[in-house]
């Protein structure tokens, strides 16, 4: 089985502009042209008024962390070197926390938590979702604490 990463998956959808926006440093929701509903993750089709037309709406400001986890046993596509490591290896996988923030308008954004040690994470803390381009060129979303 072949698994593809985040930005590649989004490129094969009608909201492919989302991935292009991330690479330019823009985190965007979709706004339905028919009824004005704002959706995140973005969607090309509105389940309220059934319109298929949308525009892009930037997500700005700071949200509140509503839950988080640290996944110590990753799925195969995610850390192939870990799951195929040699027997008796002493390599330790140190995951980054994944969090879910709720913005003031109620939109919720999932992302990697950046700049906060695991023991300092707590529900309710302020985090700002931002696009981030990784060293290998893939774009993703991070949740940044102040000063990160």
């Amino acid at each position, binding site marked *: *089985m072949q698994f593809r990463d985040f930005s590649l998956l989004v490129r094969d959808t009608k909201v492919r502009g989302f991935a292009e926006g991330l690479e330019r440093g823009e985190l965007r929701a979709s706004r339905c042209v028919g009824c004005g509903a704002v959706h995140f*993750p973005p969607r090309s089709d509105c389940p309220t008024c059934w319109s298929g037309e949308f525009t892009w709406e930037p997500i700005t400001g700071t949200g509140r962390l509503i*839950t*988080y986890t640290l*996944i*110590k*046993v*990753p*799925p195969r596509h995610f850390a192939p070197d870990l799951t195929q490591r040699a027997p008796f290896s002493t390599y330790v996988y140190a995951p980054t926390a994944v969090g879910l923030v709720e913005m003031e308008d109620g939109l919720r954004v*999932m992302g990697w938590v950046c700049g906060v040690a695991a023991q300092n994470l707590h529900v309710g803390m302020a985090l700002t979702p931002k696009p981030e381009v990784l060293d290998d060129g893939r774009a993703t979303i991070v949740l940044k604490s102040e000063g990160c």
Partner: protein
Amino acid sequence: MARVGVVGIGHSRFGIREDASLRELAFEAVRSCINDADVPLSDVQSMVVAIASDELSYALQPSAQVGDYIGFHPKPSFRAEAACASGSMAVRAGWMNIASGLADLVLVVGAEKMTEASTPDVTEVLGRAGDFLWEHPFGMTFPGYYAMIARAHMAKYGTTEEQLAAVAVKNHKYGALNPNAHMRKEITLEKAMSSFVVADPLKLFDCCLVSDGAAAILLASEAVAKKLRPDPVWLSGLGLGTGSLALAHREDLTSLEATVEAAGQAYRMAGIGPEDVDVAVVHDCFTIAEIVAYEDLGFCPRGEGGPLVEHGETCIGGRIPVNVDGGLKSKGHPVGATGVAMAVEIVKQLRGQAEEGRQVPQADVGLSHNVGGNGQHTAVHIFTRA
């Protein structure tokens, strides 16, 4: 409405079954079901098979393997699927088969062979039951989703990691008494608390097992059921609810909307309330899932699921015994088999046939709760003796 009764039950041993293929596991369950019902397979008119994953069986129409091996053709058979709730979808489809008048004797089989795939592959495939486009790319796994539910529940209600571990300790205590359970050993609270972290705050002993196994039940119309045996158990209430694909879209992260919906339907159909349930099996794929289920099913008020298990109220002798077969946690979770195995357990309890030490006394009303994914599908079924 015409009633549908359970006239036969069968259950393979759950575990790492390197000794048996998918079709052989299904055969074990069907043979014991047919023997229990004392009805020849030739009298059975139709079959529904639950196998959750094409990826784990690495085959399309894996249900054909079951039908062929038990010798069912050319009679009607089809497959039902909703990830970990597949088995309950098959039970529901079996009920519909009879209630519609299409058949009056229907075999329902659930089976899964999971351990042929590596743990990372199983983690991958199960993780993709959630929103694989928008959430899975962050490395989200099944334990990861339930860890987020746990973290939200702890923040909102003060639920503790010790209360989560108490679910595991209880379910292992009863699983040790169940000859069909995958992991037949008791564990201590200390052991559960000190096991390694899978997805913080969930540790190894907060997670259910990856198992092989099968289960089967035989359903009959009221007239046929009464003719076949003096003690049919009636499938008196069915509920099926659905929830958002993405965890982010749940209005309340501490509850499964699909369970609340399904439970409401099932209680209404059976004409009972949560206070009438004598014994329940709930979907404890992770310990937090059992605590959330207590609250969503109405066994306790919101936020009191942790104290309920901590005070022993879900043990035999407590307010409402839950998962006294060991649950997914200790009995095991061969995903397609689970929903059918839940029906087997409740029928066994209502007949008074459970093993010593895990039989709930005077159980007349039983409930099963089976979740697909992290709440995308949930089935609640109510079984009664009267």
